[in-house]
């Protein structure tokens, strides 16, 4: 039986060196440090919750252990022997396996073929030994109490089950350390319980588990130890019994506001322009209402999967709504029709610019006019001169670094691509700007320019801005009002002006986002 490898790990641990020893691991992406010298020991049978906000460096640390990312400095030892970093095969051979956040099973192959992918047993004639694969898979699955026929195609299974099978696979290849990246982000509560059960089983077998999370309940549920990262630094490392929720939260938050943010100005005090009323984003889901005033910056805070992207996309019409409506200046916009939203003065800068933002194969000029094609045509004829003037003006406004307006957008850097995606909306018609993770994958320099631009749009052009961000400092640094969402619902609302202390506010917002505070809505702008 393959999964007895865990027991071997126990005997290894009897020696003095830890199962995994991370020493002074450093990693940065460009100018952006992600890990600033991490030391961490992992022992067999431990369940470590790797906690921290988005961008704290949790995933990067895991990917380094799994050989997916090469660190700039530092080393990792496995049972006292140094690990050859940067090779997935090597990490796997030494017993470290990762279950990534975005699973990538071969959907059309059956479960057993996925479990044995790339190391299929052969018969003496060299053909695939299906029988033994099925038999071994069946046994493996049964030992984890998973009632799945190994011949079922992967596609037929839920995400949660696919994830569990991925874990089973890790065990079958003899992993003694299993890294789970955000294992609960895509699965439902009772599926989470089953996941916990399997994690406990593995722990009892002596396998070490590391999982990332930023939810308090999930930390308490299975972890034997909590390691908190913040801004790439290991802030705390304690046994679960020796640390309180308070202490965990305090060590997770308190990221410092850097000076990337322009000075916060009070909103112009304009009347409300965007009103989302009783918008239902998922069938049978909660109805959400929200208003944004002219010149106001409202930030949607929340954890991954809190429903912020869905809310903005449904308001804009990029996604179907199951009830409710969205109005600009009191006029209701036709639902599920982005062109109607655009005509009404709305703009959306989507979460992933490569998916929904720019057309990478087109040049800056054409990307620059895409949402307002009608404005630049007479009977369909493109008015070249006007287009060049307009786009040049807009791209100057966003300080786009370019050699020519005919450059393909795909050849620009991430930050500059984002500037094109924002810049193309900047016309007099813009009334409401929806920004989804406006600085994801954007370098520090371009980030501060984007912040300045957001602030200017609100203050000088009276644009109403609704932005979603997982970066807590961004939310605190830019917004006049912060709306916290969890599970598709608005659970709290804070006025920045009432909370002069950024750190206190950050903590408040975080508590609500993580679901460890009573619902709270400030009266001043409640609708």
């Amino acid at each position, binding site marked *: 039986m393959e999964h007895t490898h865990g027991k071997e790990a126990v005997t290894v641990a009897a020696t003095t060196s830890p199962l995994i020893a991370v020493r002074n691991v450093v990693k940065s992406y460009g100018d952006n440090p992600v890990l600033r010298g991490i030391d961490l020991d992992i022992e067999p049978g431990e369940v470590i919750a790797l906690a921290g906000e988005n961008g704290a460096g949790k995933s990067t640390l895991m990917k380094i252990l799994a050989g997916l990312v090469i660190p700039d400095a530092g080393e990792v030892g496995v049972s006292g022997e140094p690990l050859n970093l940067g090779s997935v095969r090597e990490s796997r051979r030494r017993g470290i396996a990762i279950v990534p956040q975005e699973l990538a099973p071969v959907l059309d192959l059956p479960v057993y073929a996925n479990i044995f992918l790339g190391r299929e047993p052969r018969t003496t004639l060299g053909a695939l030994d299906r029988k033994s694969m099925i038999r071994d898979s069946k046994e493996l699955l049964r030992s984890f109490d998973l009632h799945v026929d190994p011949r079922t195609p992967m596609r037929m299974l839920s995400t949660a089950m696919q994830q569990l099978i991925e874990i089973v696979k890790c065990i079958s290849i003899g992993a003694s350390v299993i890294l789970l990246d955000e294992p609960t982000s895509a699965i439902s509560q009772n599926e989470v319980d089953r996941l916990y059960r399997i994690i406990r089983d593995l722990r009892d077998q002596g396998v070490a588990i590391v999982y990332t999370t930023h939810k308090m309940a999930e930390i308490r549920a299975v972890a034997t130890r909590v390691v908190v990262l913040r801004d790439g630094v290991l802030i705390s490392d304690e046994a679960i019994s020796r640390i309180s929720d308070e202490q965990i939260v305090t060590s997770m938050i308190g990221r410092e506001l850097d000076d990337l943010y322009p000075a916060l100005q009070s909103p112009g005090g304009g009347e409300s322009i965007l009103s989302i009323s009783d918008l239902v984003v998922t069938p049978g889901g909660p109805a959400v209402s929200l208003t944004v005033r002219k010149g106001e910056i409202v930030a949607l805070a929340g954890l991954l999967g809190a429903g912020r992207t869905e809310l903005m996309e449904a308001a*804009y019409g*990029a996604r179907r709504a199951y009830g409710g409506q969205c109005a600009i200046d009191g006029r209701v916009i036709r639902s599920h029709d*982005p*062109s109607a*939203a*655009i*005509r009404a003065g709305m703009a*959306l800068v*989507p979460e992933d610019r490569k*998916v*929904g*933002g*720019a*057309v*990478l*194969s*087109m040049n800056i000029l*054409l990307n620059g*006019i*895409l*949402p307002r*094609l*009608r404005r*630049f*045509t007479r009977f*369909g*004829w*493109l008015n070249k001169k006007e287009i060049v003037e307009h786009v040049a003006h807009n791209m100057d406004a966003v300080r786009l670094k370019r050699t020519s307006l005919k450059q393909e957008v*795909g*050849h620009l850097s991430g930050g500059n691509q984002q500037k094109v995606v924002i810049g193309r909306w900047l016309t007099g018609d813009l009334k409401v700007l929806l920004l989804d993770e406006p600085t994801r994958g954007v370098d520090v320099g371009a980030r501060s320019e984007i912040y300045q631009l957001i602030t200017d749009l609100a203050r000088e052009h009276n644009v109403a801005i609704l932005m979603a961000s997982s970066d807590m400092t961004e939310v605190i640094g830019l917004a006049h009002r912060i709306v916290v969402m969890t599970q598709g619902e608005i659970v709290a609302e804070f006025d920045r002006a009432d909370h002069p202390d950024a750190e206190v506010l950050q903590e408040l917002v975080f508590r609500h986002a993580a679901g460890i505070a009573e619902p709270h809505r400030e009266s001043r702008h409640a609708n």
Partner: protein
Amino acid sequence: MRTDTTAIPSSITTEVSKTFWRSRGGVFLIRNSMVGVMLIAVLVFTLATPRFASPQNLQSILIAAAPFALIALGQTLVILTGGIDLSVGSVIALSAMTSAWFAVNDPSKIWLGFAIGVLVGLAVGIVNGLLVSVFAIAPFVATLSTLTAASGLAYAVGKGAPILGIPAAYGELANTRLGGLPVPVWLMFIGLLVIGVLLHKFAFGTRIYAVGGNAVAAEIAGIKVSRVRFQVYAISGLLAGISGVLLSSRVVNAAPSLGAGYELDAIAAVVIGGASLFGGRGTVWGTAIGLLLIQTLNNGLDIMLIPSYWQDVIKGLLIATAVGVDVFAIRRLNR
């Protein structure tokens, strides 16, 4: 080979070649590599046989190119949206058959027959458009089904046989000369111009490039993606209808097997012209070059009495080379 070139360290030569391929000249060379191939082909044929460069022969190349040009233009639009239209060959047969059938039925109204033939093409195009945009069927499958059905209908129109007794006046359309060139050649030039202007100077073209380059982003930018998809298939059908009418008029003949396999030559022309089958990349200029290159090869190799099976081998190699150059070029530019 001079010896001093070998003394240059490879890192410098790769650096030099990198900057060269990225320079204006390099990009120009890559973009127009097929023009070069074309010039070489012309040169070879001219040297090989004096008949090739004669005005009559050059004109016959253009005449042969015309029906292909129209379907290749439609194909360009479709491929730019990331789709494909396999049905155009069958549409040529169906529209030729219906057009000729009406002409035989009422020889006094040949023009009505032509109009109906063109409309039949448009109708198949509309069906393709609906299948792809409304029913969200993969373009390959949707147009494969209309390819099969339209071909069946073409046979049904003639009850399995060619249309007989076509009046001589039926040939007037395609064999009339205006300013020394037959009507189909003029229609080819007009088609190239109209589609070229539509694609590169009108918002219509911008929408097509956007849909093919990134359909999700196009949708978010307010472009009605399914409408654009519908339009390109309808246009492709329309152009195939015109092509079928011209082809049958030129030979004053309509057989249900007419146009069979033409879709592949049209796709080849578009691909040789540098378009990407993933959509978003390609130009009318490129398609024109691809088209002329194929026709020049067909003609020149015919004159040189090279058997048609070897011609196919040469064309196959050419397509592979064109796509290979493209992949190479994109890799160079993106490095």
